[in-house]
């Protein structure tokens, strides 16, 4: 009834053409988790997700792999309800991982937060209700594995502080945002979104137009030169929006 106020679906999305999925191996999946990323074909990710939905391997369950795969599938899905459902499934995998002994794995907390943020993005009350949880999970990820996904915890936590309602209404904090995002670009200059989000914060928090333009240019260079798979097109749109705002 109330778009944006309805609860997010927690039912697993239907996956198709699973009959031609290769036989998966727990050992193989655990030994090369990073091979499942933005460049992996969608059907391959769906095969892996289907396997992970049904595995009873305790090590796999306690890992961040399932949550990671769900996020990659969610990010490339255009249809919003399906995207939210995949992201919520990713949250569920991460919660199960934590309950199964994965609490000290920074990746588990990182992908939990990333999926949760994606799931609640368009739901105002649920986003507000989960702000503290998002902050907590990202802080844990930063403490346990700050370098995952090329400075992902720095990038996402910094963006959370940038986007959230500021004090006294919420946890938003321009100083924290700038500090974290600056570290992200310094420690992981290879990731284009580190530069994009830092540019956005420089512009909106500090009105540093010149520095924002510099970061925009650096980010575009990294976007052009890297292998970003399915993320490249949506990221190009985000860069274009900031460029427009900067009058480029």
């Amino acid at each position, binding site marked *: *009834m*109330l*778009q*944006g*106020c309805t609860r997010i679906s927690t039912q697993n999305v239907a996956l198709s053409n699973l009959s031609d999925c290769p036989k998966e191996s727990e050992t193989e999946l655990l030994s090369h988790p990073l091979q499942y990323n933005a460049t992996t074909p969608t059907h391959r990710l769906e095969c892996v997700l289907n396997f992970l939905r049904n595995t009873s391997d305790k090590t796999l369950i306690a890992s961040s792999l399932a949550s990671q795969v769900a996020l990659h599938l969610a990010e490339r899905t255009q249809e919003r309800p399906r995207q939210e459902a995949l992201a919520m499934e990713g949250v569920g995998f991460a919660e199960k991982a934590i309950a199964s002994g994965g609490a000290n794995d920074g990746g588990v907390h990182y992908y939990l937060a990333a999926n949760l943020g994606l799931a609640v993005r*368009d*739901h*105002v*009350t649920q986003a*507000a*209700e989960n702000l503290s949880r998002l902050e907590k999970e990202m802080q844990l990820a930063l403490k346990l594995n700050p370098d995952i996904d090329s400075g992902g915890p720095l990038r996402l936590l910094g963006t959370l502080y940038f*986007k959230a*309602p*500021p*004090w*006294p*209404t919420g946890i*938003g*904090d*321009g*100083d924290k945002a700038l500090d974290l995002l600056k570290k992200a670009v310094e420690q992981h200059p290879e990731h284009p979104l580190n530069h994009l989000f830092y540019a956005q914060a420089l512009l*909106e*928090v500090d009105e540093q137009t010149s520095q924002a333009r510099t970061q925009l240019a650096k980010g575009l260079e990294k976007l052009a030169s890297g292998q970003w798979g399915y993320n490249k097109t949506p990221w190009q749109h985000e860069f274009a929006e900031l460029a427009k705002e900067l009058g480029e």
Partner: protein
Amino acid sequence: MNQKAFLEVFVAISCVIITLSPAHSAAEPAPVVVCYPGGPINDSEANNGMAAMLRVLEHLGQWPDQTFSSFFTSNADECRNLLSTKKPAFAITSLGLFLEERPEHNLLPIVQPQMRGTTTETYRLIVKKGKFQNLDQLKGKLVGGTVFEEPDFIKRIVFRNHLDPANYFQLKPSRQAIRALRALDKDELDAVLLNGQQFSALGSLQLGSPLEAIFTSEAIPLMGLVANEKSSTAAERSRFANALSSMCSDPEGKKLCDLFGVESFKPTTITVFSPMISLWNQGK
């Protein structure tokens, strides 16, 4: 809680503007204009959120789905432009913009938020304890805060035309109060002007030095929903007021009210704002 926080509620809940003026056909959504001057909100993101939350009020007021379309701005000039071009019968603005635009758009207050048991707030000028004793000592000093997006409002209403902040102080406006308070703590600012919500939350911050208020404004009414008296009827204003008054009792509406500390919305009249109108006019 101050008017800006109240405006945040309306950003989130997409408080509605109805216009039944001839300029809008039955099939065309009525424009919803929400003005949040100086707010730390991205306009396009706020508009996206408002579009979803408009449905809350439509449901409460028993309007058909998609009766309204939203137009949000955090820029005062853009707000003036939207009020002129969209010609809404109802609007949500700051008190400053209401006072400024009231004559041209025949604006009439309809509903106010109640926050912390009151429909008013006070502004306070905060300094490090013991550093300054009065306003005279702050002449020419560095003063920060989030409230200077509307300088006329601060001059005429907060300081009651006794001083012009733009000339009296060296202003260092900020979009986030927490940054201004940190700057104060580091002696990068001499004072910060806080609204009611910000002052009441000071205890939640861990700053190095104790602070005190050396100036406290008179009670200022919180701004809420306004109507164009000439393009709305009494029945329409009443319907809108009733819908808003039930917002915080609605399960979904209550979540949004709780987010921003709004306890309820109360019908109001022009009489409540008459002293403000007088002060505003004295400052011309």
